[in-house]
């Protein structure tokens, strides 16, 4: 009951349709914003919504401990389900827990090879077979192209959908065009879905970047309420 209602009201539904296509080929998604805007909160919601539809999510965090990541999930889950009775919430949470796996690494010990190895191991041991992998806290730049490309073929072979948080830790401002410039022409090829978070006074807009040439990126897809970090429902988007 609770699950149906949550899926029906899913503000991130738009991802599902496109996701289905890219998941088959092992698609990459990127969430871009400067530090502190709310990439983790947004990614955790993408994960939670996917888990609701039965997908298994492996959450990789390079910097935060397991407990902290878990706390993000608990908090956002509670906010999303706040209007439902506590016993239904608890039941659903138990169910979702079986579809989530958190793996954390210390920055220096992380590598994509290690990650692939771990995922394969989880699969062979039949412990956890992820449909989606979220990689948060890793500095991703153009120099990683070859590695990311290898990872992408791995994603394709295993039908895993990847989401990355792409932050600019060195800079206060983060302009999507700068990032796109840095990555060059392959930006759109590597990442099948590029979302870009822009904080405004009372809300955080999530825009889609399609191509440098088009204006499509200016229309926000969804927005986040900065006080709860929750993704708002579609109809709430109106010009400020």
């Amino acid at each position, binding site marked *: 009951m609770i699950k149906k209602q949550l899926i029906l009201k899913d503000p991130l539904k738009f991802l599902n349709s496109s996701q289905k296509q890219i998941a088959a080929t092992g698609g990459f998604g990127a969430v871009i914003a400067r530090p502190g805007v709310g990439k983790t909160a947004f990614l955790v919601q993408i994960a939670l919504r996917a888990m609701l539809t039965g997908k298994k999510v492996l959450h990789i965090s390079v910097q935060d*401990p*397991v407990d902290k*990541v*878990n706390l993000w999930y608990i908090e956002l889950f509670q906010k999303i389900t706040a209007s439902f009775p506590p*016993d239904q919430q608890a039941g659903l949470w*138990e169910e979702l*827990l*079986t579809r989530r*796996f*958190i*793996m*954390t*690494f*210390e920055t*220096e*010990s*992380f590598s994509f090879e*290690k990650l692939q190895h*771990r995922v394969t*191991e*989880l699969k*062979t*041991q*039949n*412990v*956890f077979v992820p449909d989606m992998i979220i990689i948060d806290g890793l500095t991703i730049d153009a120099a990683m192209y070859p590695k990311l490309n290898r990872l992408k073929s791995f994603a394709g072979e295993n039908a895993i959908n990847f989401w990355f948080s792409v932050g600019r830790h060195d800079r206060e401002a983060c302009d999507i065009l700068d990032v796109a410039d840095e990555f060059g022409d392959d930006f759109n090829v590597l990442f099948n879905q590029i979302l870009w978070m822009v904080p405004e006074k009372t809300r955080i807009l999530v825009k889609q970047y399609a191509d440098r040439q088009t204006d499509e990126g200016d229309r926000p897809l969804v927005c986040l309420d900065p006080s709860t970090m929750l993704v708002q429902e579609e109809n709430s988007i109106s010009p400020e």
Partner: protein
Amino acid sequence: MNTDIQKVRNIGISAHIDSGKTTLTERILFMTRRIHRIHEVRGKDGVGATMDSMELEKERGITIASAATYCQWGDHEVNIIDTPGHVDFTIEVERALRVLDGAILVLCAVGGVQSQSITVDQQMKRYRVPCIAFVNKCDRSGADPFRVIAQLREKLHHNAVALQIPIGQEAGFEGVIDLISMKAVYFDGDYGDAVRIEAIPADLLDLAREKRDILIDAASIFSDELTDAVLEETEISERMLLAAVRTGTLKREITPVLMGSAYKNKGIQTLLDAVTRFLPSPMDVSNIAMDIDDPEKQIILSGKADDPLVALAFKLEDGHYGQLSYIRLYQGMLKKGDVAVNMRNRQKIKVGRIVRMHADQMEDVERISAGYIGAFFGIDCSSGDTFAAPGLNLSMTSMFVPEPVISLAIKPVNLQSEKNMTKALSRFTKEDPTFRAFTNEETNETIISGMGELHLEIYLERMKREYQSDIISGEPRVAYRETISARSEFDYTHKKQTGGSGQYGRISGYLEPAPDQDFIFENKVTGGSIPTQFIPACEKGFKACLEKGPYMKYPVTGIKIVINDGASHTVDSSDIAFQAAARGSFQQGYVKASPILLEPIMKVVVETPGEFQGNVMGSMNQRRGIIIGAHDVGYTTVIEARVPLAEMFGYATVLRSLTQGKAQFTMEFDAYKQVPKSVLDKLREKEEKKIKTGT
């Protein structure tokens, strides 16, 4: 005996399993000349470490019961409580912390902040025990004290600051640089007992300066004098820095970190200096007692020797001369021949022999005064009892005791064993509140229950060895519980009016789930349809049903019973009739309230070398475990999972064979959760088989 209370330190040594805290204690006793030979925990000489006095402890190389011992360092007197590291013995750790004023948190330079360190740290927080950290095993390969400091900050949120830096890495570890005096300290001689102080080696000077600046920066918050000196760029004296670090440590706002290797006898003396310099004396901490009649009221104890006595028995031991009770005095003085009152049962006792302990050897003393730890003989009490001067009405804060999660049926083989077993059980239950023993009246079996497999195993061994009691033990059993998951109504009439004195009672009302509660009974009967004098009988009747639920015959919890109507008969209604009506009502309502079975889920943390992590996760998965996450820390992986206790029997052996003995795990109770259907069916089958074969 030292009479200056300012120079007394009551400290504990807490740590993760195998961080080497017993070895460290052993070295401290050696350096303070309390013992004259060093025995290794698992040494070849077969003597074992001095603190591990129980035969069993020596054999297994672990510390079970915490022994108290005292030693002298300079003009300071240090009382040390050696605390067990295994999670099954958490109660011992908690009890020890209650009587400590400060603690040394021992961390492994390779393993860093491990799961058990986190548990111990939480306990220290609960009792607000100031602590200093000692990074042990700096001589091991892969040792990195600064990584450990970073983990202290990150994982335990300590404001950890290095007071030393190591000279030499791993196998080349030679000594430490003291950042306060800016001198290099080497430990020479076979046992590292010859301290050699020299100038800092040139290649380490820059690092030492850098780390000293960090130290000064952190300490300056606690001292205006130091802040001024920093701002005015004048000479920063050793005294200033020491005072500031001490202030911060006592407030628990700074954690000084020292380094060394207990096994290689390095860094022990500097650690002892730090204990006397930074940890509090009994006068520096305030201890709080409760008023027995008004538990809300808190009384701060003066800690003065001239005030009336308040003391806490924190540990019992069975000595050669009868029961030995370890006590900590919070206020007043205890002399031979004094009279004190055990506040639990108001019994007056006369103090006979008083001793101070050094593991299992002791020294007789005339008196003990406030702030000290000692022991007395021949007084019958339980651990956790408060002793106070006649006229006082105080109790030391009651300690948190977790419910046992595992039980085991035991049977003595002959009469002599039975007698001994009874003696042993009465001793153990007094010593350890998490260990319980009772007789199952239906099967006439003796059941013991506790906090884990190892916990019970140790007690079984002790019964055999110390009490010569031969015992056959059954399979360990999980403490399942029943509860209901829906609301249901009942309306039941108990009627027996055929011949003789009749019985009549009707009760109606409803049952509903009350998560996180044991049992709530609410009386909403109006207009006297059930006369008031029978209400307690109703409650009693319901309560009796909770011991064995109608669903699977396990205790019932998390239930609320509300009665709102009923009927009575002027002659035939009685207490007995209403108790029977309550039982009937319960049966009627319970089946309709969708009963479910709950099982204890444990939080299991496994630390394993990376190459085995797949195997370990697989083993968790086979055990119905939900893996919360895995944290990769270079060579080791820490896996955290929630696993039903029922699946964890014998896991230690499984883990050993999966990982070539290189992994370790800890387990503690997390919550009660519903048993899944498939498992429930199997349990049912088993029960049915038992009944069939039994009859």
